[in-house]
């Protein structure tokens, strides 16, 4: 408590204190307080401080809880003090205000200060009244804002002024000017009328909702508080020997919550719930390296694309290599599952479909790209396959049909850079998002039904991966040159929600966890970072869990 402002505290506190302390049976300090009561009100605060301490000690000893409550209410010094008289400097200030206004007497200072100055809540009240026994009087205090106190007092006191004939002209001009400024018009010459009668209000409960029409962006009613998105990753893992190659897809997260990452020629599995890391496999030849990884929908099998043009299939639970499928003429950089069909894209520009259940796995070839097929994604409903290549093209292929040639449904060349980032919207059918490389840097949203580009957004950095995050309906993009970060965009407005910075080199891959709450990124700085950005409220989580259906796959029975 600042000592200088003692006046703010003393009257009610000591007044109440004395009331309480009179009930205190024996204390040598009683006499002090009695003296204080008789003394003038300007008591130094420090003494009150010390007395408080002693008083509290007494209270503790006596354990009379009624007193405690009273003390606590006094000690709560956050209420405006209404009982203390106005400080001298304030009285002076208000009287000088009064004299500035024509003809108002100092006695009426109360109302002047009401209308002309902003009264801070802590200044003592302007009413001179007796100290009540408790804070906050119980008198009716009328509000006078709507009445024209200034006009009224001006008119009242105008007649009392001494009329000096010499100065009359000057003062009358002054008065005229004053009344003009006070009232906005010359009272002498005009009067204001309005049609009386019942007020005409809009129907009950009508609330002006023009804010919906006229305000852009956030208004208090409509804005949902954006959740807190942590700017630091939940976990950072070391990924030594990671190949810093833009075109490879070395990260995938299974529906059983196992994260698979390929480091050069080894594949490691991280059990995200337990934290266990196991080495699944290692390629025999040192010069070979893993180019792509893809989990099946159930998460029991992992497809691995290698630099020696092979696609391997592993049973993860038994840690067993099931088969190797050779059909490509160059490295297999992208993989995507559609039930029992595995599609693979390679540096040659060809996309092969493999039916993994049969011996003759290679069932179809899609030719269209002229360069490396780095992006490959089946739509969630399995109707379309989107592919993006180093030739800047995006193709959309229909579901595998029997027949020699498969024609693309769409072919988009709008991107100016390699299209590795492809993502289908899980909650809106037929929406595809694609992201371009260094020379393009744009995210484009396509409607596969109409074939048109719905929107396009310049992100200013190379886009290496895109993922739709359904929890909050957002699109997440992973960037390389030049920002090396992950950006979360609101979908479909594509407004920036958050940026996840931390990687020191270009982010190569981005993958969403099976519970949609976390994204894992792997970057050229040889780290894997997990960002828990999409955590749902516990209430919403329970609702979602109730709705979730379990999707069972038939595949685990059919693979030999």
């Amino acid at each position, binding site marked *: 408590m600042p000592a200088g402002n003692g006046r703010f505290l003393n009257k009610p506190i000591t007044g109440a204190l004395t009331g309480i302390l009179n009930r205190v049976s024996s204390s040598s300090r009683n006499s002090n307080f009695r003296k204080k009561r008789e003394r003038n009100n300007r008591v130094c605060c420090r003494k009150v401080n010390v007395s408080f301490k002693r008083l509290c000690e007494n209270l503790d000893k006596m354990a009379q809880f009624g007193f405690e409550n009273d003390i606590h209410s006094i000690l709560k010094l956050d209420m405006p003090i209404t009982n203390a008289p106005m400080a001298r400097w304030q009285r002076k200030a208000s009287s000088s205000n009064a004299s500035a206004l024509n003809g108002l007497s100092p006695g009426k200072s109360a109302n002047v200060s009401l*209308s002309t100055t902003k009264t801070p809540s802590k200044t003592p009240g302007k009413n001179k009244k007796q100290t009540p026994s408790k804070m906050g009087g119980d008198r009716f205090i009328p509000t006078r*804002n*709507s009445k*024209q106190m200034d*006009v009224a007092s001006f008119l009242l006191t105008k007649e009392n002024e001494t009329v000096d004939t010499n100065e009359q002209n000057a003062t009358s001009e002054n008065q005229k000017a004053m009344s003009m400024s006070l*009232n*906005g*018009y010359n009272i*002498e*010459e*005009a*009067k*204001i*009328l*309005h*049609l*009386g*009668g019942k*007020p*005409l*209000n*809009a*129907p009950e409960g*009508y*609330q*002006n*909702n*023009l*804010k919906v029409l*006229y*305000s852009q962006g956030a*208004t208090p009613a409509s804005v949902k508080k954006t959740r807190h998105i942590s700017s630091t990753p939940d976990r950072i893992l070391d990924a030594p020997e990671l190949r810093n190659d833009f075109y490879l897809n070395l990260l995938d997260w299974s529906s059983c919550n196992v994260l698979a990452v390929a480091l050069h020629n080894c594949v490691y599995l991280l059990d995200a719930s337990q934290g266990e890391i196991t080495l699944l496999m290692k390629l025999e030849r040192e010069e070979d390296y893993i180019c792509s990884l893809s989990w099946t929908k159930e998460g029991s099998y992992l497809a691995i694309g290698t630099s020696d043009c092979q696609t391997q299939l592993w049973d993860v639970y038994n840690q067993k290599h099931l088969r190797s499928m050779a059909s490509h003429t160059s490295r297999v950089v992208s993989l995507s599952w559609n039930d029992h069909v595995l599609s693979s894209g390679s540096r040659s520009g060809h996309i092969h479909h493999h039916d993994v259940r049969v011996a003759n796995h290679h069932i179809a070839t899609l030719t269209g790209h002229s360069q490396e097929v780095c992006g490959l994604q089946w739509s969630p409903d399995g109707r379309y396959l989107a592919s993006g290549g180093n030739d800047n093209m995006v193709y959309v292929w229909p579901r595998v049909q029997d027949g020699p040639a498969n024609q693309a449904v769409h072919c988009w060349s709008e991107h100016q850079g390699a299209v590795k980032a492809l993502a289908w919207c899980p909650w809106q059918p037929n929406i595809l998002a694609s992201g371009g490389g260094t020379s393009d840097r744009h995210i484009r949203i396509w409607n596969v039904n109409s074939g048109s580009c719905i929107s396009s957004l310049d992100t200013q950095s190379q886009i290496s991966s895109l993922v739709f995050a359904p929890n909050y309906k957002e699109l997440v993009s992973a960037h390389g040159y030049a920002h090396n970060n992950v950006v979360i965009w609101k979908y479909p407005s594509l407004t920036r929600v958050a940026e996840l910075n931390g990687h020191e080199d270009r982010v190569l891959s981005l993958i969403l966890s099976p519970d949609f709450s976390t994204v894992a990124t792997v970057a050229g700085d040889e780290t894997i970072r997990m960002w828990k950005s999409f955590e749902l409220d516990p209430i919403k989580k329970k609702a979602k869990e109730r709705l979730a259906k379990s999707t069972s796959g038939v595949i685990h029975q059919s693979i030999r």
Partner: protein
Amino acid sequence: MTSTLNGITLKGSAELVANFFSFGINSILYQRGIYPPETFSRITQYDMNLQLTTDPKLKNYLTKVVSQLKEWLFECTVQKFVLVITCLETNEVLERWQFDIDCDKSAKESSAPREKSIKIIQDEIRSVMRQITATVTFLPLLETPCAFDLLVYTDKDLLVPDKWEASGPQIIDQSEEVRLRSFATSIHKVNSMVAYKRTDSV
């Protein structure tokens, strides 16, 4: 239109100005959302689309005010016409639309019609109406339910008709003012301005 093709009589001028006020008030009530937009219907006036209220009580009230205003305009005894928007609960004045009327008192009923093309007057009125609509871009949103009142500043010695009462000016303290365009028939000149409560934010 009670005016000759090129000349404006006092009566015609009064009617023009009164019409302007009628449409202007309706427009302001619609734009500021004092009344629900469903209660307004679109009409064409001054070669533009304007909104006119269909609420019978409101219509009645406005007709009474405007017709009285027309009389006063004819007599050249009105100085200002003010629309005040107040917050319903706190009675605080939030917005104040003030139309200053300058009347050429030399024009009398019997004097010859003055030269001013109707078209020019209409153009001027139209630009003021457009400006009123455009003010929505900077006027602060009225978040609370509001009531409005119409005030008329008349000459001191005017006989106060039935049902009309005296009132204060209802000035906003701490206001921002914006002057809008003015228009003039050759007899009356109307200056418009809007004052609104300065908002603390931004």
